[in-house]
Structures are given as structure tokens and as C-alpha cells.
């Protein structure tokens, strides 16, 4: 198959414009407690019930680093094939806001914990490397709630102090679709590692999107605008598309792009200015004197490396080589660690070719329809394997298998039991089949004569009648053999 060519340009009468995107993804670290305090990070608790004196910045309170969050960041760095920095510094980012209790956010500025890395995307036009600039740890702020009362703003500090990883990409992305796949790839990697659940509804993954445009072929980057805090992949795609078009329009009408921070209005599908470069905050970063520089040992990193799971890219290669899957199939089956686990569990006891088809086609359809995670699939890997075995051994036909599968989905039952109870076992006794065939042919003697005198199309009719007579359970191969034999005579 020939590869498609990359073709995402904004085309106008005059020009073809290339869109350049870089992402700052904020990923919430999976950890029991916050980055610098012992409070719980559980989502959905009552407002201000998971707040320690540190999180609410009481006088004299001091941050103490949560080592588990460091491990999570290092693991993620390893998953991004990135350089882990043995020495990093926590800085204070100073600004006033009601949901920022200390008046500063502890973040990493000049010396992040993770340096350069890369992730690979499978695009229709070939594989594409997206550079990672850095990953750093920082605290989340609290939440301001403006819509409960016309006169008051309420503040919920449950999220205040929760650990985030900010993953900054290089400006390597060139289309909304690449951004889509990049975010999904990051999410897959982090889910494999167990470092971020990637749940965008709960805000565990959100991104600031930097967009600029330049004429096709131009080497220099255009002036970028940063779209703040976009919290779904769909909105990222929409925001990029509309922002890029806005920039192109401006440039083509002879205006210039001002570097600024913008917001995406999801209802109007447009970005609008939040603050210009002149109005940008001066965060007055400086090393947090309450925290010593973070020094980690190579042995600590090596220890984590040993415990890393097989990551999606490696797993995909293995699936292609070992199980003879197509890249598309492999991609689908490694897209979630639980899907890959499911697949590998099924093929322990069942035919690989049948298994991949059943999972990708039948099972996914059911999961999609029921909006279920594969972990909550009503059909267990063991039961799916039994079903596939029943097909392979000729116990049931593919058609009957679908019926059995439907029942399995509804009841969660074992296929062997269902086949037995419903009497769905394939009729594979030649003597019994012969009896049925003889009866069908006897009942339709006129058509038999027509067939024999040359109307061979009628063959299908006889098969259909036999299947009907056997309630669909007749073994099609045997039916074929016997029927041909009988019609010869």
C-alpha cells in the first residue's frame, strides 16, 4: 500500500500555510498524597476536605517533597525516552490569586527533573518523531468557583498542592490530527506506566497549546499565540484549526501576529485574547528556600528502569513480529495496556487470527455501545478464548458463534454452557445430515430436476433449505460434501 502524503495546509487564494504547534501538557501524577503534603488527592471529595495546613499556606508551614511523586516523574521521563536530571531545583512562581494560597506555586524553572526526550507517532504518512523539551514537577492550584453566587467567588483547595507533570513538547506538531495522536500517545505511555490516569473529564490531563503559522517552505517560525488550559483533545483540534485560520487571515491582510495568551471559546469555536505580552505576569521565579535542591542517584533511576512495564512501541513491535499482526491491528491492541493484556490472555488458549478479529470487531463494538472499559468487559478473556476454540474445533459455526457471543455479552456466561443449554452445537454427524438432506431433496424434487438439467444456481437454495431444516446448526462443510454427492446422482 502506498503511503499517503502529509497534507494539512491552510490554503488560500494566495498561499499555502503550514501550522506549527507545540504543547504544554499538564498531567496529574497518580499518587495517594499531594506533592508537598500528606493530604489525599482523591477526586470528587467535598470541597475543602482534603486540605492540610501546608496546602492552605498557614504561617510557618513548610513543604516536604513526596518521594513517590519523584518516582512517578522519573518513570514518565524514562517512558518518554528522556534524559533524567540527577540534580533539579524547585522554584517559586509568584503570583496572586484567590485559589493560590501561598501566593506562589512551587514549580521547576531552570532545572527540571527531566530533560529532552521524544515520542513516536504512527501517521498515515509514516512514523513521526515529536521532540520533548522537558518535563517538570509542579503543584496544582485550588479551584475558584464563580457561578454559585453573583456576589461571591468560592474557593475549593482540594486540588491545591496536587502533583502535576508539565510535559513540554518541541514545536514539532503540524496538524490537529498530529496533536490528537500525540496527546493520545502521551496518555497511553503514562497509563502503561501508571503515572497519570489521563482522565480529561476530571482534569487529570489538560494542555496549553502554542500555535503559529508560516508559509509552506518557510524555515523561520511565525509569532506564536498560547491557548491556555484546553481540556479535551477535540477542543485542542478545534482550537488549533480556528486559531491557525485567524492568524492566516491576519497575515494575509497585512497585519502582524502579537504574541499573547488566548482562551478557546468552545461554544463559538474561536479563540479570544486573554492577555498580551505586555500584560504577561512577571512570575519572579527563584529557588524555593524551603526546599533543598533535589538530588537523585543513578541507582534510583536504574531501579525504576528495571521495574518499567513493556511500553507501547516495544509491545507493538513484538505483536507484529510474534503474532503476525498488521501495524494497524497492533496499534489498536496496544493502545491501552488493558487491551493488550486482554489480547494476550485470550491467545494463550485460542487462535491468534480469530482472536484479534473477535476483539477488534465484535468485542470493541459491544464495549463502545455500552461505553465500557475493557476491564469491565462482560466477556472475560477466558470465555472469549473458549468461544474461539469452539469455532476452531468446528463445534459451532461462525454464525452461531455470534449468537453465543450475544448471550455471553448479556449474561457473562461461559460459551460451552450456553451452547449446551441452547442446543447450538453444530450438527456434524454425517448420517443425521444425510437424513436431512435426503428429506430436503425429496420435498423439492422438481427443483432437483431443474438443477440437474443445468440450473446450477439452485445449489444455494438447497444449502439454505438444509440449514433452515437444521436450525442453522448444520456443519456447512459437511452439508456441502453430502449435498454435492447427492445431487450428482
Amino acid at each position, binding site marked *: 500500500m502506498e503511503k499517503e502524503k502529509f497534507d494539512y495546509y491552510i490554503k488560500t487564494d494566495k498561499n499555502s500555510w503550514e501550522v506549527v504547534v507545540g504543547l504544554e501538557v499538564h498531567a496529574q501524577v497518580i499518587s495517594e498524597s499531594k506533592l508537598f503534603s500528606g493530604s489525599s488527592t482523591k477526586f470528587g471529595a467535598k470541597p475543602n476536605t482534603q486540605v492540610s*495546613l501546608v496546602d*492552605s*499556606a*498557614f*504561617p*510557618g*508551614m*513548610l*513543604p*516536604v*517533597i513526596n518521594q513517590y511523586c519523584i518516582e512517578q516523574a522519573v518513570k514518565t521521563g524514562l517512558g518518554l525516552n528522556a534524559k533524567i536530571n540527577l540534580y533539579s531545583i524547585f522554584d*517559586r512562581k*509568584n503570583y*496572586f*490569586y*484567590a485559589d493560590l*494560597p*501561598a*501566593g*506562589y506555586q512551587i514549580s521547576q524553572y531552570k532545572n527540571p527533573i527531566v530533560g529532552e526526550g521524544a515520542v513516536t507517532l504512527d501517521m498515515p504518512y509514516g512514523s513521526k518523531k515529536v521532540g520533548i523539551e522537558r518535563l517538570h514537577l509542579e503543584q496544582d492550584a485550588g479551584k475558584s468557583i464563580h457561578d454559585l453566587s453573583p456576589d461571591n*467567588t468560592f*474557593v475549593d483547595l482540594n486540588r491545591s498542592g496536587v502533583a502535576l507533570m508539565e510535559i513540554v513538547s518541541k514545536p514539532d506538531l503540524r496538524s490537529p490530527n498530529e496533536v490528537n495522536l500525540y496527546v493520545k500517545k502521551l496518555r497511553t505511555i503514562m497509563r502503561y506506566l501508571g503515572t497519570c490516569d489521563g482522565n480529561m473529564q476530571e482534569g487529570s490531563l489538560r494542555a496549553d497549546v502554542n500555535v503559529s503559522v508560516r508559509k509552506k517552505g518557510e524555515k523561520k517560525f511565525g509569532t506564536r499565540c498560547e491557548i491556555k488550559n484546553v481540556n479535551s483533545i477535540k477542543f485542542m483540534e478545534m482550537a488549533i484549526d480556528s486559531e491557525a485560520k485567524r492568524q492566516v487571515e491576519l497575515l494575509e491582510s497585512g497585519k502582524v501576529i502579537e504574541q499573547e495568551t488566548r482562551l478557546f471559546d468552545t461554544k463559538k469555536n474561536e479563540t479570544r485574547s486573554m492577555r498580551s505580552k505586555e500584560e504577561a505576569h*512577571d512570575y*519572579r*521565579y*527563584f529557588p524555593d*528556600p*524551603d*526546599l*533543598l535542591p533535589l538530588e537523585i542517584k543513578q541507582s534510583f533511576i536504574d531501579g525504576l528502569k528495571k521495574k518499567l512495564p513493556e511500553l507501547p512501541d516495544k509491545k507493538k513491535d513484538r505483536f507484529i513480529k510474534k503474532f503476525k499482526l498488521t501495524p494497524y491491528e497492533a496499534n489498536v491492541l496496544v493502545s491501552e495496556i488493558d487491551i493488550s493484556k486482554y489480547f494476550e490472555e485470550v491467545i494463550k488458549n485460542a487462535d491468534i487470527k480469530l482472536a484479534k478479529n473477535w476483539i477488534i470487531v465484535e468485542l470493541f463494538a459491544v464495549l463502545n455501545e455500552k461505553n465500557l472499559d475493557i476491564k469491565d468487559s462482560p466477556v472475560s478473556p477466558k470465555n472469549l478464548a473458549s468461544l474461539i476454540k469452539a469455532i476452531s474445533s468446528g463445534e459451532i459455526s461462525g454464525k452461531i458463534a455470534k449468537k453465543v457471543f450475544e448471550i455471553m455479552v448479556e449474561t457473562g456466561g461461559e460459551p460451552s454452557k450456553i451452547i449446551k443449554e441452547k442446543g447450538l452445537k453444530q450438527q456434524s454427524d454425517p448420517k443425521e445430515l444425510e437424513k436431512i438432506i435426503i428429506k430436503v431433496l425429496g420435498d423439492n424434487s422438481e427443483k432437483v430436476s431443474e438443477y440437474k438439467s443445468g440450473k446450477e444456481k439452485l445449489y444455494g437454495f438447497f444449502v439454505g433449505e438444509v440449514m433452515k431444516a437444521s436450525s442453522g446448526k448444520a456443519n456447512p462443510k459437511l452439508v456441502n460434501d453430502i449435498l454435492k454427492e447427492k445431487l450428482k446422482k
Partner: protein
Amino acid sequence: MSDFNKSSLLEIVNLIKSKKVSSLEITNHFIKNIEKSKKLNCFITTCFEESVKNAKNFDAKKNFDGLLSGVPLAVKDLFCTKNIKSTAGSKILENFIPTYESTVTNNLWSEGAILLGKLNCDEFAMGSSNETSYFGNTINPVGKDLVPGGSSGGSASALAANLTPATIGTDTGGSIRQPASFTGTVGLKPTYGLCSRWGIVAFASSLDQAGPMTKNVEDSALLLEAMSGHDHKDSTSINKKKENYLKNLNEKIKGLKIGIPKEYRVENMPKEIDNLWKKGIDILKKSGAKIVNVTLPHTKYALPTYYIVAPAEASSNLARYDGVKYGYRSKKGKNLIEMYENTRGEGFGDEVKRRVLIGTYVLSSGYYDAYYLKAQKVRKLIKNDFDKCFKNVDAILTPSTPSSAFKVGEKTNDPISMYLNDIFTVPVNLAGIPAISIPAGQDNKGYPLGLQLISRALDEQKILNIAFAMEKSIGFKQSLNRWWE
């Protein structure tokens, strides 16, 4: 009844431990003193009811093992104390009642001490005269119109006036040693990280350190032992075994090498300070110590460095006082920004505002490298000076302050001259090393003067021992006629 005003902390501990007096008797004695001494304005908050209750509870106990058995103590109002107002000398925390106890004060109570009340201090510990306190300035018992120094001025005055048998302060640039020097008492700033900062209202996190303020060196050793110790809640706390400073206290300093840094002989230093210094040198020589001339070449940069680093950290540390969560909130303002501006404008005093402005400025983009970053580099040079020095000497002897206590109002309109008061104390904070100020004499007006001993990090025992030896030879006596009662 004996005169507890003449008793040291250690003597009181021993009296209580041997059951010669009860904790309640001692507590009532100090409560009486405090009640008679309102003129000095040492206290922001007293908690006598609790003190008496705690003293009675203590007396009913069987176990008198604590280092500070049943001793009533007042502490600087920079320490957060559970259920007792903790103001940091500021209007913005005027009614702030913590639900938690600072590690250092908690250590004191664990050793059997009892809280008498909270002592006045410069607002957020920013000041050298106790005149920036929102609760009015404290008077030095040495003289009606004298400042006690600062920022631990309330602590120093209360101690000198026998309103507490000992006390604790904090020292960011000299805030324990300078008031100790001004009031004829002993003040020790420990190695950075020896005493936990958890629960102490932060001024400049990389410099702040709590320490004992006492009538003599023995008490200093005892109180340091009680208050110090590793704390996992403070990431900058040093993880090491607790020392027995009191048990190991001795005056054997023969053969020790004491450095005299020429850079501390500043211009316009009063003759009597110079004479005091010479007197200290003579005493050390007589005790068998060896005097060595040393150089700390970057000393002159210490003060400007300090006045960049400390305000920078303070500007960020004080951002939390915004009226949103606790403390003072202005009723004026139409929106969040105006609420911030009015709250902070009304809640902070001039000196605090000055330092927040300086700090904000030096951290601003475009100025950061020229000020903050450079200051950090100079700070390292200052530390290197000391490191080099301590390769050859065991301790360094300097005056504690360039003058004796000055008059109330004398320097309030001249911040620079006020800042110059910390010229001998600031380098020690920048280097994170320990120093002790002991009373060593009086000037011609009869005001006390102090000498400072500096050592390498964690060498508190050594300067305590040298100070102990010097104290005996100096025989400093201060008799105040309790004019304020």
C-alpha cells in the same frame, strides 16, 4: 521566699526538680513581675490562666525528668502556639490563633516548660529596634528611652527585666544577638537547620533560625539542648543526634585558636567598642587561647547581600497574607485585586512594605541576574571566607554590634543607619554558621555591650565553651533598679 529574679534558668529547674519550690510558685512570681512591667510593653499576649493551670498540672505529676521541668517561659510572638494568638507583631495577624504548635515551642513543652505569653517583636521580625511592631515598641529596661534592639526585642527586654527566666527568639540577620547585646544578656544563633523552622512565621527562609536567649551561658546550653533537634517536617532541618550541650559545657579553652578578623574594625566604630574587643582578646589570651589575625575579605558585601536575599525571600513568604484565608481582611475594595491591595496596604507596616517592595524589585525579570543572582554568588563567597578561616582557627571573636542601645525614634527615619546595626551579625546568617553574643562590658553611659563568638557549622559546643570561659573572667553584672515597676 528566695529572690527568683536572681536565679538562672538552670537554678530554677533544679529548685523545681528537687521540689524546693513548686512550678506554681515560680509561675506566679513571673506573672507578678509581668503584671508590674506593662510600661516596658514586652508582651503582645499573656495566657496566665493557662500558665497557672499548666503549673498546677505539672506539680501534680510524678515525672520531673524534663530538661525544663515546670519552668514558665515567654516566647517571641513569631512562634505559632496552639490556641494562643500568634501575631508576628503585625496587624495582618492581629487575631490569628493557630491550631498548631511550632516544633521548637513544642520541644520546650515536651521538656516540661510552660507558656507564659507571647513577646513583642518587630513586624515579621523586620527591624533592629522593635519599633516596627504593630503593638507598639518595647522599652529596654536598661533605660527609659532606649530601644531593646530587634527583632527579638520583646524577648531581650523581658529576659533582662526578669519577666521570664529565659526565652527564645529568631535570628535572620542578628535578631537574637543584637538585642542580647543591647540588654546585657546572652543570645545564640545556632547553625542553620539545627532548630526546626516548622511553625515559625517565616521572614527569610534561608536565613531564619531560632535560638536561646538567656541570662548566662549555662542556660544557653540548656535551652539550646531543649529546643533543637531534627524535624522531618522541615526539609532544611539537619538530621543528626541531639547534643548534650550542658553536660559537655566546660571552660577548658587552652590551646584553642581564636581568629580576629580585621574587616570588622569598621570606620567610625566607637572607641569603647574597640576597647571591649581588646578586652575580649586579652581574656582569651589569659585563658590560654591563641589569638590569630584572620581575614574575611568579603565582609563589606555582607550587608548589601543580606538586604537583597532577605527581602527577596520575604516578598514571596509574605504573599500568603492576602486576606483570603485567615488574618486581617480590609472591608474596602470592589474586586479581588482591590481587596488584596487594601488588605496588604492596611495590614502591613512601613518597614514590611519597604522590604516587600525591595524583594519584589530584585526578583523582577530584568533585575534578577543583577541583584538576586549576584547576591547569591556573593553569599557563597562570604561562606567561603569563613570556611577558609576555620581551617586555621577554632572560633572568631568580634563585637556583636557597632554601638550600644540607641534611643527610641533615633533611627526610625533613617533605614540605612538602622540596617548598619546588623553589620557584624549578618555575615553569620549568610554563611549559615552559629554565633553567640555575650555581655562583655558597658559603654560610658553604662549601657551594655556584647562580644560575638563565631564558629564553623555545628560547633555550638565550642563557642558555648569559649563563651563560658570568657563569662567567668568578664564577670559582667547588671543591676537594674526596676524603674518601670
